[in-house]
């Protein structure tokens, strides 16, 4: 026995309304975490001439510097198949700001479990930041295919216990 048309419509409606509510609720949750909790994705930090990276003030001398108490800045270049710097030391509890660009092809910068995940594009300045609370050694990984030795491209960040 086929159901009546009005019954069909009722079934459809009973599905459609939650189907709208679900994505709307998820989106609201996203907006709260992104703008309320400050866990945000990469944004627009301007272009850089990919053929003159070494002349740019941010990248002419790649390295780590303390910019304020508990705040560190990493100015980093990516090139086949290495990061410069490729070893970073910060004390536990530091917030680290990464500024990164590529001298050649597309690379990626990822530190698992620390919300550092940004593409490293030639011609663009990338930025990401995170707090490193737990002492330990964490890998820095290039997560975009960048040629035959892509899997060798990595580094580490060493979070040191406070004395």
């Amino acid at each position, binding site marked *: 026995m086929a159901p009546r048309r009005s019954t069909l419509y009722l079934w459809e409606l009973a599905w459609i309304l939650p189907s709208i509510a679900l994505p709307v609720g*998820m989106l609201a949750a996203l907006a709260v975490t992104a703008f309320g909790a400050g866990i945000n994705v*990469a944004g627009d930090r301007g272009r850089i001439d990919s053929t003159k990276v070494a002349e740019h003030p941010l990248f002419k001398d790649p390295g780590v510097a303390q910019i304020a108490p508990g705040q560190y800045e990493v100015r980093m270049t990516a090139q086949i198949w290495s990061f410069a710097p490729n070893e970073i030391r910060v004390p536990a509890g530091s917030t680290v700001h990464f500024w990164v660009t*590529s001298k050649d092809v597309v690379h990626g910068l990822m530190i698992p479990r620390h919300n550092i995940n940004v593409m490293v594009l030639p*011609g663009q300045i990338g930025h990401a930041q995170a707090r490193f609370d737990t002492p330990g050694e964490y890998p820095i990984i290039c997560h975009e295919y*960048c040629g035959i030795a892509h899997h060798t491209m990595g580094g580490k960040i060493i979070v040191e216990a406070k004395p």
Partner: protein
Amino acid sequence: MTAVERRLAAANLIIALVALFGGVVTGFFQALEYAGIDVYPSLAPVIRSYYHSLSIHGVLNALVFTTFFICGFLPFMTSRALSLPLASPRIGWLTFWLMTAGLVLASIPLVGNAATVMFTFYPPLKAHWAFYIGLTLVVAGTWLVTLNLALTWRAWRARNPGTRTPLAAFMSLVTFAMWTIASVGLAAEMLVLTIPWSLGIVVGTDALLARTLFWFTGHAIVYFWLLPAYVSWYTLVPRQAGGKLLSDPMARTSFILFLLLSTPIGIHHQYADPGIHQGWKLLHALLTFAVFFPSLLTFFNVVASLEIGGRARGGTGWLSWFLRLPWGDPSLAAQVLAMVLFAFGGAGGLILASFSVNLVVHNTAYVPGHLHLTVGSAVMLTFVGITYWLVPHLAGRPLWSRKFALAQVWLWVAGVLLFSPALHELGLRGMPRRTMMGHAAYMQADWKTLLPLVGIGGSLMFLSMLAYFLNMVLTVTVSRRAEQPALPFAEALSGSDHAPSAFDRWRPWLVTAGLLVALAYGPTLLRLAATTPLNTPGLRVW
């Protein structure tokens, strides 16, 4: 429906399945590599590296198999649904040969290790020009399919004024209309950036502009793969299950929404890209969540149709009707299991699309885990299920072995249920994708424990596909000739006469789709194009 449509479908299917075979074999090598078995040294004369293999795997499976299958299947379905031959058999064959020529052209550098750039070919990695021109010809071929379908529909409309377009034809037309809008991005990337650059006419390129044009097409392409599977789920599977489609108007609604929303969402693949403001990324996140809605409609409609079938076959209860489906039919089993796998794939995809949550999983092993549930299972397994009736129909020979086919389907499910969850978890643990893990400099202990599962799952998937190809080859060579009728279309409980007539007007929907794309992409693309120095040199570093 004449012999021409059947022959065209068969020709496209042959290319699709040959490509799939190549993709499956290279995939097996990669699964072994993850499990710590490095077979590449012994393949060296043919396959030069893990990355060479991976590029072949992606291009053949995701681009060639899908496109040729769809260009064979949907014109066949349209012609049957309209009970009309294709408007122009000549355009049909021109399309096929153009696409095949493009494929051959692109394959030469791909196989010769001169296009080891993955199927996403992000510049400044620079492949041989033949790779870009070949792929562009394939895309141009798909536009001719759109033209032929549109002409066919017009001829049908002239003879059938005032009636609703039959559902399968409507869905096929929407699929190709959506794809034609979406493929503009890829075509622009090829014609403006990569082709002149690979030929040496232009010295430099722009990584971000190229990526943005790529993903303009790159997300919609997954709907170009998925919608033909939906065509089968909506218009054939309900009948294969012994029932009827629940609602034709709801089905049309979901396809119209796919037409509008498939393209203006591509930046959700670029959440991690610098150079695009977060506001645009959030807009694309919003629209991505909106396109989740027609998929939920599809889920409801298709599962309800299965339920009608299961109950008609004597099934009862809230869920146990599911067991009463005709599971002995490999074509149905493949497609229903494809749906089940897609439920997980779709949910995982929402996580990837979730803006800041993407930080956790972007470019990790989670992504191939997701892809093998969606295009690798929902789409591929559905297409496999379709070939279980379509190839016998086209060849005029019954399927060589139904039992073998059933075993193939379940073996795939078993394999992918080891393979994909393991990759998802590895992604959550921070393992990158597209990386030769056996030689990775930063291997972590908690990755090593899971990697063998990828190898075992991948091996089962490989065995499943070997069984599939054996069955197909024996069907067309050994099976005794006997006419195999094509599957009849499913009837609908709530039929097309309940659908608003506005669904049969094309212009308003196409214009709205175009406007949404212009709104979502216009400002970003214009800004990138206006400010690009176009000076990043290309590199061949593999």
